[in-house]
């Protein structure tokens, strides 16, 4: 019984987003005073059903937004995204110069080697991914 309870307590609060795989998850190291950090990763949907990621959050950040960066006529532009769509057996790259996570109001400074757990929500399910902080490569 005790074992069963311990097992239940350790179980994640959410069932995983079916088919979602999150790889190469990293955060470029930023100045300690930075009030926003970027998050990059490769998202793959291994499943037969399309996935919609409607939100991302993590205990280390006040809030997390999804952004699309683009260059229009010499202008650097950023736009908030309403979630991410992953077709069945499709993928989306969160990468420099494109889509990224905007990790806002970090609760403490991060330096290279640190890590942070982020949850990708798809409806009632969510998949956790460990993001490691690395020195940005110019």
């Amino acid at each position, binding site marked *: 019984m005790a074992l069963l309870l311990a097992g239940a307590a350790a179980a994640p609060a959410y069932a995983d987003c079916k088919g979602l795989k999150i790889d190469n998850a990293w955060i*470029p190291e*930023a*100045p*300690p*005073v*930075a*009030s*926003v*950090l*970027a998050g990059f990763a490769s998202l793959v949907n291994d499943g037969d059903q399309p996935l919609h990621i409607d939100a991302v959050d993590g205990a280390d950040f006040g*809030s997390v*937004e999804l*952004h699309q*960066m683009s*260059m229009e006529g*010499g*202008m*650097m*532009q*950023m*736009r*908030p995204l309403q979630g991410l769509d992953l077709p069945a057996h499709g993928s989306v790259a969160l990468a*420099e*110069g494109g889509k*990224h996570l*905007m*990790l*806002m109001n970090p609760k403490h400074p991060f330096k290279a080697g640190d890590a942070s757990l982020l949850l990708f929500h798809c409806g009632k399910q969510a998949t956790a991914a460990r993001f490691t902080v690395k020195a*940005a*490569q*110019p």
Partner: protein
Amino acid sequence: MSNRLLSWGLLAGFAVLIGIVAGLVVLRPASVQIQSGTLLQQARPIADFSLNGSDGKPFTKADLAGHWSVIYVGYTHCPDVCPTTLAQLKAVEKGLGEDAGKIRFVFLSIDPERDTPGALGQYTHYFSPDFLAVTGPNAQLDILGANLGFVYAKVPGATPQSYLMDHSSALILINPKAGLAGYLTPPFKTEALVSDLKQLVEKSS
């Protein structure tokens, strides 16, 4: 009658010739060619402006005189391209060696609402203690923008605090006479930037 026509014709031909010569003089290619952007044929004067440096001192046109300046327009709530560009400028500064002392790198924030000079300075000095960080009231940023050819715009975000800024992405080159000399445009390559800036510095010394 035909004599008169002939003299008009000669006069017209002469005028065209003068025009071509004048054009060649005015529009002659700049003596320095850069790989990473464009140099103006003639540097453009800049009107007076008054911003605030992160060091607590005013930052005015006088601060642009006497050395080359590279101005990068951005803001600290920009997680992707701004820190990447600042990290690249740090690599450029290192690559310039002794010539780095002849160029001032300026991070100009177009988000004075969130980037106070103090916080902006801390952010910028993480990349290099020699980088200057400046910002100022929108009216002054607009004057400088009109003179240097950069634009910026506030874009609503998911919450009132998480608004975004669109901004020009080019690095702005200012010559030692405080004139607008040209632009370096992305994608930036560290080695090309170093070689371009070395050329500019050496030409003007």
